[in-house]
């Protein structure tokens, strides 16, 4: 799980990239609190070969990246 709430672009993408490089996970959950980060992390996930689903949780976005 990467909790990138409270961070503006491009930080959430950098945080997710670090996690992917470190652990190469099959699935990864990411929390962000703004639409720009949601879109950017979605693009990042797809560029790394993950399928990405997005759920709105209150005012946050929960992204699930799956290989």
């Amino acid at each position, binding site marked *: 799980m990467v909790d990138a709430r409270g961070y503006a*672009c*491009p930080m959430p*993408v*950098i945080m997710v990239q670090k996690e992917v490089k470190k652990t190469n996970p099959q699935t990864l959950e990411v929390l962000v609190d703004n*639409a*720009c980060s949601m*879109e950017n992390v979605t693009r990042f996930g797809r*560029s790394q070969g993950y399928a990405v689903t997005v759920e709105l949780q209150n005012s946050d976005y929960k992204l699930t990246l799956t290989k």
Partner: protein
Amino acid sequence: MEEEIRLTNLAKCAGCGAKVGAGTLARLLEGLRVHHDPNLLVGFDKSDDASVYRISDELALVQTVDFFPPIADDPYLFGQIAAANALSDVYAMGGEPRLALNIMAVPASMPQSAVHELLRGGYDKVYEAGALITGGHTILDDEPKYGLSVTGFVHPDRVLKNSGARPGDVLLLTKPLGIGVLMTAKKAEMLSDEGEQFAYRMMTTLNKAARDAMVRYEVHACTDVTGFGLLGHLTEMAQGSDVHITLRVDEISLPEEAVSFAEMGLIPEGMYRNRQFAEPYVDPGETALAKQDLLYDPQTSGGLLMAVAPGDADALLDELAAVVPCAQRIGTVEAPRDGVRISLR
């Protein structure tokens, strides 16, 4: 160590990415009383780059203002970019800048030497443009900001609006796109040194040479590509001119590094604002998402976008190729269609 201040860390958005979106701006201006004056040739009602006011049959005044938070850590560089960007609005109207006033906000903690360098960057760029800085106004603020109010002149019959494009015109652009994405990659500390130098070179290049070439040809409309991105500014041009535009995406200069950064989501928030504004009017065809994103990417001190009479397009393009960073023929203007204003091919 006061010299180690990183200007971009004090900025929430970089450069023209800080601009309020085109849709929001239109709502903010809605209902404000518009004063009419027969000498006011261009006011805010047409979303143009600057106001133009006729003084005589031979002379019209061009006025504009532009400022933003740091887009570079080096204050001298930031000053040059902000000045080139502010001057550009006069060039985009076909005018020549003459006078400029500084607008500056600085944090109390910013070293005096850095403020001096920032101002020196502005002065040098304005001098290069053949204009003078004659004063200004500075306030204290946590986030630094710098820009200029610029006054220039143009012949009242040769004002280039963003809304004069005609079917048959050829669209030319004088700088590459992708600056917003490159600067976002810089914030992520992933941009190469070459990429950084390239972006700064583009942003500090005046649109003076482009303007000087353009005014000798039959150009029907012009704007500079800045905060709203190419597709945001083109949407305004297409709507204002009541035309349809077809863009040839493969002819548009998109730096390779910018395409790969866009693919991996290093995209400024302003791109999403621009997309929200212009997307309803754009048919993306088969264009890859990353390339679309770059066409919506907010530019700082971007190039001039011109709608040129077809008979003059080749000659102007040749001339531009010798004097601007990246002369490109990017599309054509056509009669209006139902539904969309811009088609990507």
